[in-house]
């Protein structure tokens, strides 16, 4: 049996779910990372230790395992829990670790003399963070950040394990019904590709706009 036009429509809908899950997790993950990164530079050892522990645990665990762990943990805590909510939590925790490291790299990339300059102007810490550090980190971190965003779309496929109905799960359902393995998988792959490509284009657009605003000299 071949897949039908309505199967195609189903896959397209599932792709939208994948994308929404990924986007929500990117948004929350970025917020969590914004809170985490300063911990990496905290003056107290405890803050730095918490940061390292978080990165170590979350980054060192396969997403699949993390998904099962969080899903069952949340379920035992609250009883029944929506797999979609659990899915967003899982991806958020995972992405936050990756993004926090991306941001940390951005902070480390700021040349020491620029810190000196900001200090010598007598700027309060908050102003240094807001006017100097954040805009520079945004520029340095953008390429690896986009990398994480693209990964997020693909990582969302793991959520099929906790019965989030997204592109991968939908594909499997259709394959089981039609046995049209290769065509279904090809369509799914194409949909993933389109989503990733769109993020990539969006990101490059942003990059060149920042470059036009005077970062790192001429446009490449």
């Amino acid at each position: 049996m071949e897949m039908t036009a309505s199967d195609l429509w189903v896959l397209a809908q599932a792709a939208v779910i994948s994308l929404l899950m990924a986007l929500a997790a990117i948004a929350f993950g970025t917020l969590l990372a914004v809170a985490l990164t300063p911990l990496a530079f905290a003056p107290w050892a405890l803050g730095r230790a918490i940061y390292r522990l978080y990165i170590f645990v979350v980054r060192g665990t396969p997403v699949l395992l993390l998904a099962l762990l969080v899903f069952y943990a949340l379920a035992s805590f609250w009883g029944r829990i929506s797999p979609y909510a659990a899915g967003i939590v899982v991806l958020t925790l995972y992405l936050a670790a990756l993004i926090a490291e991306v941001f940390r790299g951005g902070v480390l990339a700021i040349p020491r003399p620029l810190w000196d300059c900001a200090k010598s102007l007598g700027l309060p810490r908050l102003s240094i963070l807001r006017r100097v550090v954040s805009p520079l980190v945004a520029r340095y971190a953008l390429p690896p950040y986009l990398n994480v965003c693209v990964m997020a779309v693909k990582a969302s496929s793991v959520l099929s394990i906790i019965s989030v109905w997204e592109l991968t799960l939908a594909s499997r359902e259709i394959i089981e019904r039609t046995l049209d393995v290769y065509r279904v998988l090809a369509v799914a792959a194409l949909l993933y590709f389109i989503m990733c490509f769109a993020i990539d284009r969006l990101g490059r657009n942003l990059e060149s706009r920042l470059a036009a605003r005077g970062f790192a000299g001429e446009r490449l």
Partner: protein
Amino acid sequence: MIEIRGIRKSFAGVEILRGIDLSIGAGEIVALIGRSGCGKTTLLRCINFLEDYDAGEIKLDGEVLWYRADSTGGRRRCPEKDLARQRQRMGIVFQQFNLFPHMTALENVCLGPRFGQKLAADAAELRARELLSRVGLADRLNSYPAHLSGGQQQRVAIARALAMKPQVLLLDEITSALDPELVAEVEDVIRALTQEGIAMVLVTHAMSFAREIAHRIAYLADGQIAEIGPPQEVLDRPRDKGLREFLRRIR
């Protein structure tokens, strides 16, 4: 106006500054010279507390800067807020310009007054425009650093340091990174500033420029001021043996 007493500073067990004493009067211009590694840049950075120092005291108009005595007879860094306020009374210009790459010339100069001194946006901008035109960049207000020559960037950096209306300007080899034909434009700006009575401490290898603008020249060797005096004395009749050797070598 600035009183530096017994500044000592070690890096990784090596003592770079071994008790520096130096007084700088209001409007006085002092040039620091010496071999590379003699501690002149470190001293400049200590004055502005970009480096902490192990011992000694720096006063500006009688106010002890950067550290406070604590009850145990030791000392303690001033809170960040005080450090920021104290730093605003000095401007520093670095060898490598160090403009913020994501800001235009105007934004670079506005930053300090706007967010350090909490001036209103239009007042900060007015001051910045004035300063930039004084350093000859009235037509480059909206250029980003990457689109400016080294000499232009350094002039923006000078305007940025002046924007806080500092009492002292610290200049760290500000022409060393420039192409020879760009040195003059930066020196001209500094020369013009000497007419305004702002005190300056400059680290430099440009002896003829130091001779021209400095009231006194201090020769640093082994973390101490080995000789200090008016340019004619220090450069033409050096008493210190190391200084004679140093001057012979750079000529």
